């Protein structure tokens, strides 16, 4: 055994890394501290790490007085769950056949999938086709269908996993026993492919949770379909957004008493809270996924 000593190199490494860690944590701390600062202090002193007076008014407002915020939270959860489920269903249904080396036209179909990674039409034609041909403007589907419900990247990664982790002899044996392709898919492919599906599901879930672009593009009149991110985005343009429209408790003169500055930060904090709480779980799968994406798909 030799005695470990901390070299000057390691000392510098630790200092840099600690500074970086602080730089990551401080902004979240500012968000949180601002959300529990009393509104009058916020208006005079601004946001700060050490507020002079604490208050839970902003959170009280969010959970007790505003139906909009709770509703937006519900929309976010709904969209994340449905979107992720759709993604995994479509992606694995497409990845399984493509993982079979003997499938006729496999190369051509792969190219059809892969080409979407090289070339895309961009926002203008996408927007026009979704709104004129498919009429999804101001519907809840508008938050789920465009852009995120399936992508070539995911199919390629899932297909590669299936192909290299599930031996084709297993399928052949099942076919001799008379199992249909669909049965093979549900009883062999899905259970054995679970690790990659959980990883890709995590990616997709976060994507839906964080998305605000679909709502920005496609929700015009139906602001009741706003997700929590859309709500935050709308408040940038219009601080009074929360108090406009149908509101249960705050009416008339009470409107002016909404702790608007603190509420903004409180909603932002409530929106990141699930990600912070689930972080250890998310991190595990994200690191796996990033490593997978780094190697060729």
């Amino acid at each position, binding site marked *: 055994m030799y005695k470990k000593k901390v070299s000057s190199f*390691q000392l510098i490494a630790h200092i840099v*890394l600690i500074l970086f860690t602080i730089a990551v944590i401080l*902004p979240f701390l500012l968000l949180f501290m601002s959300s529990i600062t009393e509104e009058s202090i916020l208006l005079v002193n601004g946001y*700060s790490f050490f507020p002079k007076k604490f208050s839970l008014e902003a959170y009280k407002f969010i959970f007790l007085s505003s139906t909009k915020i709770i509703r937006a939270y519900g929309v976010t959860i709904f969209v994340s769950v449905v979107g992720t489920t759709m993604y995994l269903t479509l992606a694995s249904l*497409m990845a399984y056949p493509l993982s079979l080396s003997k499938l006729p036209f496999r190369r051509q179909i792969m190219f059809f999938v892969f080409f979407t990674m090289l070339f895309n039409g961009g926002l203008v034609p996408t927007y026009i086709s979704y709104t004129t041909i498919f009429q999804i403007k101001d519907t809840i589907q508008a938050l789920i269908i465009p852009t995120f419900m399936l992508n070539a990247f995911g199919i390629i990664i899932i297909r590669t996993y299936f192909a290299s982790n599930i031996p084709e002899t297993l399928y052949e044996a099942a076919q001799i026993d008379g199992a249909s392709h669909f049965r093979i898919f549900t009883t062999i492919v899905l259970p054995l492919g679970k690790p990659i599906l959980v990883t890709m599901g995590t990616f997709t879930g976060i994507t839906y949770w964080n998305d*605000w672009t679909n709502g920005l593009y496609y929700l015009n009149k139906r602001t009741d379909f706003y997700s929590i991110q859309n709500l935050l985005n709308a408040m940038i343009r219009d601080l009074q957004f929360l108090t406009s429209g149908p509101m249960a408790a705050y009416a008339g003169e009470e409107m002016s008493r909404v702790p608007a500055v603190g509420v903004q930060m409180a909603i932002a904090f409530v929106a990141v809270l699930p*990600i912070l709480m689930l972080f250890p779980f998310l991190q595990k799968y*994200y690191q796996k996924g990033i490593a997978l994406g780094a190697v060729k798909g």
Partner: protein
Amino acid sequence: MKKWLPLYIMMLPGALYFIINNYIPMFGLIIAFKKMDFSKGIFGSEWVGFRNFEFLFSTSDAFVITRNTLLYNTAFIIINMVLGITLAIFIADVTQRHLKKVYQSAILLPFLMSMVILGYIVYGFLSMQNGIMNNSILPLFGKEPIFWYNEAKHWPYILIIANTWKTVGYGCLIYIAAINGIDPSLFEAARIDGANKIKQIIYITLPSLVPTIVTLLIMSVGRIFYSDFGLFYQVPRNAGLLYPTTNVVDTYVYRGLMELGNVGMASAAGFYQSIVGFILVLSANMIIRKVSKENALF
């Protein structure tokens, strides 16, 4: 063929999605050569030839958005690479397991935030009335408050810092994985030969990282004509005075289409981005194939 039929049926929903979400918009790109009439749709609208492009390139906007997009992406690529590798080397060298985990978590956390949240965080620092910069930090140095959201000159720095904070972790984790893959006996042998840490980095770590660096570099150069819409829309809060330094192709297309109702100009800029982007992706891949075939996309 009959035996394969169920498999093709399984692929049908996904294929249909790609047609709706990707292939129809690709053909829809012809809208750049038409005068969009929403009642007639993309294919029914009237042809106008190159008129939309003539309008686009006769404004100074075309130059500004191209310049901004390319310069920001260049800065992001260089900083994320240098800082990402540095942090990765540092983290890989940490021997205390718990600390290593803490650092790795810190580096990934911002990557999982939405751009809206990043916009709020930056606002918490820079808001003119309430921001911590103007209220607490600048007075500390006896400086006057700065109207951050009115002065375009600060934004190249702000956007670069914000982007680094949010995205450096992604590349860093890839580099850590690559460093962990280096044969430890190489370092062992170097130590016995008396090579210090810096020498080990120069002669072992960095050369081993070259394939990863080249791949990531070429891939990001391939995407240099696309920018993160969220970063350039949310973080400057869509403030009009900041457009000279915050407008990129993606925000320009969005504003043309949604806010100004100038579909012609937006579609011309979008077409320009799609075509140049496509050429860059193809060239990047061709170069990767020459450098390291196994890392090529196709």
